[in-house]
């Protein structure tokens, strides 16, 4: 059925002033990740972000931020929640992932997984990939630990 709902709509339709804000709250369980990613991905497609952004950059970077929030931030404590806010306008997509943990230092925790020392390690690619796939990755405190990913429209 989905081919009958072309996300683009009328080619003549203006996009400029359309503004979307989305908020999703989930318990600290990695099984929610795929569904949340699909929700944001479809949003991304609906506002006509580049196919590659919708299929690669957004799903992978958001997955990483969610895993980290669930595993490290909330220690998989099912009582703790992760909040995802997405804001899209004609210029950019901003994703904020908030966990209930104490935060961390992006610069300190990011290592180069492509170095000879690290290439065969199983972990340590999450923050690196977020930074590669997004235009900016920031962290700050705001009623919890917030990781903000920004992707400019191609």
């Amino acid at each position, binding site marked *: 059925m989905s081919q009958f709902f072309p996300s683009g709509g009328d080619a003549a339709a203006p996009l400029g002033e359309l503004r979307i804000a989305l908020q999703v709250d989930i318990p600290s369980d*990695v*099984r929610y*990740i*795929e569904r949340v*990613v699909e929700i944001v991905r479809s949003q991304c497609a609906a506002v006509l972000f580049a196919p*590659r952004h919708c*299929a*690669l950059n957004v*799903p*992978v970077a958001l*997955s*990483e931020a969610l*895993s980290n929030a669930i*595993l490290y931030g909330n220690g998989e404590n099912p009582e703790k929640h992760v909040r995802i806010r997405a804001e899209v306008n004609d210029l950019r997509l901003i994703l904020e992932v908030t966990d209930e943990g104490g935060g961390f230092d992006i610069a300190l925790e990011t290592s180069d*997984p*492509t170095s000879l020392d690290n*290439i*065969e*390690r*199983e*972990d*340590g*690619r*999450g923050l*690196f*990939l977020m930074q*590669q*796939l997004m235009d900016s990755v920031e962290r700050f405190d705001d009623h919890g630990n917030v990781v903000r990913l920004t992707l400019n429209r191609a």
Partner: protein
Amino acid sequence: MSFSIKKQGDIVVVDVEGQLIVGNRQELKQKVLDELEKGEKKFLIDFSQTGYIDSSGLGVLVSLSKKIREQGGELRLANLNDDLKTLFELTKLDTLFQIADTRERALETF
């Protein structure tokens, strides 16, 4: 999302259907390790039906590849679409794996 495993000659072929991410990577790992334990040596993972892979999925591929090599075996990958290829390039994992364009190519040259 799921993993289907079949034998083609002496090669174990795994199809990754859907995502390979933190929520299901352990299942892939276990399935492949089970085959390795049974004495299988040649493994091909086919990504033609895969959506996206996260860093924990990449990590599982790295650790499987190492374990298979330690048993004198080999792991190959096939059918990465452009987006997935980019992911391997960004992480330089394209230098660590034997990556074939098609399943047939991967099977032929084993």
